[in-house]
């Protein structure tokens, strides 16, 4: 099926007093109709910036330095603000993190739901309000005709998020961007909202980009998962591939730090902090925090290696000459359950190009000496041991 969205080699930076912060450093992905792509990563990894760049709702000090965002074949980066206004809310809609603050406190919710419908569709006010009422019913708010005339403070947090979803669905968008839609809700409500989103996606056939840092949520909703770190996608794959056959040490770290029913004693935490994107590190950005870092990681940025047709990971560990490392026991247990296919490990041509430009020096990536691929644990000492 044709992709509804293709993001190609996206680079975004922010001008700050301290200098240029390179928030997004070469992101590539595509989205198929009806598909749910989850983007996971810790705070500051660039998840929200990526999603906002698609809506072109970035802060005024943000620059798209390079790259294309092709929506139905047209580059959104080149669109004028006027053209973007026609797309926002009608073809691409967004759900925000905090339902307590994302509704206008002084406007009746009926008006707020009808607003994008009136704006984008050639319908009368009455028709728009009728549609708004249907939407309220659709997202599971009882007594919609009465509730239309109420204000946001008369609704609970979960109900408000349902209303925000109703607003987003007003014009049957092709893409729904959900920026941590359940983070601010308590767990039982989270489950309800996720259930609702899945159900609605079925009905409306929209693609969803789901931004979250909660892997539990990802497992629940996503078809494919992209793991983001320091402004790049470090691993992309189907939900099964990411959860049961992860390849990148960062993904290992994320999965290990997620409590499971078997967890006892200490819960693992990834040591260190994310790199300062004012001066992005040379080589693999995750290397300083990784116990599996190779010497080459500090010198050259790893390309995305192909694990399967749908699974890619940017780590030198996948290089044929790399030493075999044993992932944490927790990950090994996960992998043993995965029906291991014959892994064909080679850098995929199209995907390695984009990270290749960040690679300094004339070095041929496929001909690294074994020396460079040895682990460098001794040289780094205790800083790389997990801290609890």
């Amino acid at each position, binding site marked *: 099926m044709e992709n509804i969205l293709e993001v190609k080699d996206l680079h975004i930076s922010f001008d700050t007093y301290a200098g240029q912060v390179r928030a997004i450093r070469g992101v590539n992905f595509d989205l198929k109709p009806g598909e749910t792509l989850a983007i996971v990563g810790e705070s500051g990894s660039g998840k929200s910036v990526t999603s906002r760049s698609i809506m072109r*709702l970035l802060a005024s000090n943000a620059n798209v330095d390079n790259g294309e965002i092709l929506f139905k074949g047209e580059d959104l980066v080149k669109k004028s603000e006027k053209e973007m206004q*026609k797309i*926002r809310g009608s073809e691409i809609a967004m759900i925000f993190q905090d339902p307590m603050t*994302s509704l206008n*406190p*002084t406007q009746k919710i009926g008006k707020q739901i009808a607003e994008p419908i009136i704006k984008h569709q050639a319908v009368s006010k009455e028709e728009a309000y009728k549609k708004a009422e249907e939407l309220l019913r659709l997202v599971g708010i009882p007594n919609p005709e009465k509730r239309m005339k109420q*204000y946001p403070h008369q609704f609970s947090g979960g109900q408000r998020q349902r209303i925000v979803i109703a*607003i987003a669905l007003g014009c049957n968008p092709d893409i729904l961007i959900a920026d941590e839609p359940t983070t601010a809700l308590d767990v039982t409500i989270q489950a309800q909202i996720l259930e609702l989103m899945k159900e609605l996606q079925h009905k409306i056939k929209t693609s969803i980009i789901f931004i979250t840092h909660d892997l539990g949520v990802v497992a629940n909703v996503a078809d494919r998962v992209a793991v983001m770190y320091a402004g790049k996608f470090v691993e992309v794959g189907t939900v099964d591939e990411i959860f049961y056959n992860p390849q990148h040490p960062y993904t290992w770290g994320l999965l290990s730090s997620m409590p499971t029913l078997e967890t006892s004693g200490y819960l693992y935490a990834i040591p260190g902090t994310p790199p300062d994107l004012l001066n992005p590190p040379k080589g693999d950005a995750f290397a300083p925090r990784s116990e599996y870092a190779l010497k080459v990681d500090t010198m050259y940025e790893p390309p995305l290696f192909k694990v399967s047709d749908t699974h890619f990971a940017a780590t030198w560990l996948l290089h044929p000459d790399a030493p075999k490392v044993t992932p944490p026991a927790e990950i090994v247990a996960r992998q043993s359950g995965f029906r291991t296919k014959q892994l064909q490990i080679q850098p995929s041509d199209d995907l390695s190009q984009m990270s290749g430009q960040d690679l300094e020096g004339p070095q041929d990536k496929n001909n690294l000496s074994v020396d460079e691929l040895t682990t460098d644990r001794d040289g780094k000492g205790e800083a790389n041991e997990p801290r609890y």
Partner: protein
Amino acid sequence: MKSYTKYLGKRVLYMILTLFLIASITFFLMKLLPGTPYSNQDKLSEEQIFIMNEKYGLNEPIIVQYGIYLLGLVTGDLGTSFQFNNTPVAELLSSRIAPSAQIGIQAVVVGTILGIVLGVISAMKQGTWVDTTATLTAILGRSIPNFVFAVLLQLIFGVWLGWFPIALWSGFASSILPSIALAISPLADSARFMRTEMVDVLSSDYVELAKAKGLSKWEVAFKHGIRNALIPLVTLLGPMAVALMTGSMVVENIFAIPGIGEQFVKSILTNDYPTIMGVTMLYSLLLVSVILLVDVLYGIIDPRIRVATEGGE
């Protein structure tokens, strides 16, 4: 809605209590003022003073005078002025309230509306020269006292250009300069305040959502920004009204407006007790009414507060 009327009733009751306290405190404070109402006391014999005091009830013990005064107040009798040939205070004030009210209202309305517009524009054009100019104007307006403005306006528009009368009270044209002079400070205050609030609101989540709906920058500002930014500004209206009332005394003098401010200054200088009390009570009444009005306005603008008071029972 029933509980809302109940709430309003309670508020009016509190208003009356406040007025009673103000009347009492002012009465006793006034009695502590040095001097007597008689400007040429040296030439008056003891007997004459006694007769005069008797006539105006000043020989009674203070507590009795207080009782008589309160009784008068309740029946709407503010007494008679010492200074103006026994004119009843009520009559004196009513002849002078119109000019004061006119320039006061003109100043508040024009000042706050212009201030809001200025504040919204500078918030929307944040960081540009428009913003800088507006902020500078607001700071100037806030820091230069209104009597300086008054004199400058007289010089420029009255003396040099000759467009408006300098110091005269006759019709609308003569109310323009004093209104402008008085409007400067509410304008500056509301512009500064509105800018801050608007900048806050424009970075809020619901404005982000409104943008994500596909609204343009100005649509967002008008449909979702201004009303929310106005809520805190309403709080400012009370103190602003007070500032105008006190500020108007000087400005009224400069423009020779036969208003209440001017009357107040005169009556204090001459220990005209009934007039001092009358003006104080009038100002207090205006003030508590403004405060009540602000609370009612709050409810109209912010639905959350409306419900809080409705659900107060």
